[in-house]
């Protein structure tokens, strides 16, 4: 095959694959992207039932209810509003009251949020960035002092007035 023809082949094949991949990626992004909501966002304008979303906030102290058959129900707060979360799985080991978590799931027809996954971090000193932003907006965030060096001195901010659900 002549050199110019070969080059045409290569460029053509590359263009087809890349265009296909780019098309796939943009379509898939649009369809599968999961939006993050803070509890106050939900209070303002609740997402449609069935829409897959992520909710994050601090677990309200004293709000965790552990049914006899397993699973857990609890509330998360961003200081502005609370949201009740129903979860039928086994809570992650790092789940604590007062700690930042992210729950993924959707609202049912009655406006109850069912989580399919609850994420608490490996590292207990770690705060999900979205949760930190949501807390900051509601004035519940305390800047960690010296966050440098392996997180030894750094503890996640503990809300002083949680539980009431303002």
């Amino acid at each position, binding site marked *: *095959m*002549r*050199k110019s023809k*070969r080059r045409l*082949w*290569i460029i053509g*094949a*590359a263009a087809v*694959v*890349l265009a*296909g*991949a780019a098309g*796939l*990626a943009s*379509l*898939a*992004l649009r*369809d*599968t*992207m*999961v*939006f*993050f909501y803070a509890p106050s966002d939900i209070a303002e304008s609740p997402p449609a039932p069935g829409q897959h979303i*992520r909710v994050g906030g601090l677990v309200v102290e004293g709000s965790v209810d*552990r*049914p*006899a*058959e*397993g*699973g857990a129900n609890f509330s998360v707060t961003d200081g502005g509003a609370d949201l009740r979360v129903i979860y*039928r*799985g*086994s*809570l992650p*080991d*790092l789940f604590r009251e007062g700690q930042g978590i*992210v729950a*993924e799931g959707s609202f049912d027809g009655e406006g109850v949020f069912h989580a399919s996954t609850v*994420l608490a*971090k*490996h*590292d*207990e*000193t*770690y*705060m*999900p*960035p*979205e949760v930190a*932003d949501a807390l900051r907006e509601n004035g519940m965030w305390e800047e*960690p002092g010296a*966050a*440098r*060096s*392996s*997180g*030894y001195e*750094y503890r996640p901010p503990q809300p002083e007035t949680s539980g009431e659900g303002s």
Partner: protein
Amino acid sequence: MIAELGRFLIALALAASFAQLVFAWKGASRGGSGGFAEAGRLAVVAVVVSAGTAFALLIVAFLQSDFSIAYVAGHSHIDKPLLYKVAAAWGGHEGSMLLWCLMLGLFGLAISRVGPADPALRLRAVSVQAILQLLFFSFLAFASNPFDRLLPAPVQGADLNPILQDPALAVHPPLLYVGYVGLSSAFAIAAAGLIEKTPGRALGAALRPFALAAWTALTAGIALGAWWAYYELGWGGWWFWDPVENASFMPWLLGAALIHSAIATEKRGAFPGWTVFLALLAFILSTLGAFLVRSGVLTSVHAFALDPERGVWILGMLASAAVGGFALFALRAGSLGEGEGFEPTSREAFIGANNLLLAASAGVVLVGTVYPLILDMSGGAAVSVGPPYFNATATPLMIAALVLLPLAPFLPWANGGARAGLAQMRAALLLLPVAIGGGVLIWMGAPVLAVIGGALGLWVLGGAAMDAVGALPAARTRALKFAVAGRALAHAGVGFIALGAAADASRPPELTRALVPGESLTHAGHTVTLEDVHRADGQNYLADRATLRLERGGILQPERRYYPAADQNTREVAIRTRLSGDFYAAIGEPRLQPDGRVGYEIRLAFHPMIWALGLGAFMIVLGGGCALYARAAGRVVQRRRVAGETAARGANS
């Protein structure tokens, strides 16, 4: 004392890297021999010795529980078992960065000892490696020093996260770093080749063993991480498309592309520019991975504690490597030369297609990983991109790659006749309906993806077996035998992984229920009875151990542990492995029942044929090892031949 010595050694390694850069650069400019070259080679040894001693000192500090060192205080505890005191040396950011730097030095040493045959190119690569060392050692010394003091020293340490106290995790990071950092040597050789205007073919040959070694280690590291996630995290999965997993998967995909394109470049001079570009890009993506993991910009299960300052540093290093590498590429790619022609049914064409698909996969993974970040930085909504995106984008590309994979080894190089290629392929093509039939039969009723994956897995496995049967007897030298075996093993490993992933797609959703001792639960055809729950404390934890009796025979004893030092719970899952799959049980929180009895949350899951994933990864690593050995054996033979010819010539003259 240890802290001061450690800091001094890190500074010394930094200074030695500078000497390495200057001397090796000058040495390379003088043809790779002489005093400067010698000094450059010595400097690499000095870097390795100082960084290695610093690393050993850090381990000693952990063994002595020297809590006046902030890093030790943050990651250790007096009561911790010995193995994890040692492993904690690389369990956090600073220590793992020291290990990363040590590996950079070791790969510099490897280049200077067994690197490119051309002495000038070899030394130039050593000096480029020195630039990378300078970047990372500065970061270590000025922004991530593991020997920083903590005053006043606490009486007790904060302990390593108990979830990380696991034998697999003790070796997982070092292997990953061999992979990530190993790609730096491919970067260094590629950049050096551009500086030296080395022809593409020679450069492909020089790159390949380093890329192969790095990629093999990366495969092993990723596999261990997946295995650990499977049994230690107790999430009931092995791959989550988590940003940090993606951070390792992107260099893996590019590395896989690179080791194939480098063959075509070495053997036929095909795609010289692309091979060099890939070598540059693979390491840059490794560094991007380090940025994503260590800067705290992403919500990830793996993230280290948040620190924007570190992020800025790593971004700076990333930008320097990328700008330097690509500018050099833009200026000098012309010197690599043009490849020879080939037909669409040649092996080059198939390797090209494989590269295109692998690179496109890396591209879609990259988009999905950084898109939430970019949207967030540009003030958009906070979003996350999860498994549905990656399944919809990367999976079709992988499927296409798997369809082509078994055919490539049967095709001749170059223009060797498309007809001959087709005749060769005919036997392989006969396999396709068999594989599809088998896939449909085995996974009847399972999701479509499981059927496709299963058929493709059988197709790839069959192709690898036919390749081995056909090519092994024809291979005359030991090097050739190992090369063929390596190829067949690695390809068969890919087939097993496809089988395992397909089986996973047909996995039933897991079940969680609180059980009181005496009660039973059925999942995926297995009935288990909770016999009792008793205390089973260990050296540094308290534990509840459940005894579950399987109706089909056998006992499962999952544990839930509490580590007082870290004030944290972990769970040890119990797994019963059979050919059909793993039956997996975990024990969760106790639950008070209405009648006053105490129940325990029991989680059951069934993972069909998950052993295929482990076996596949093992075979890929073994295949990589064989290919490396083939390379070394071939090199010895070649050297002997050259030596023999020189001797013969000497005798004749």
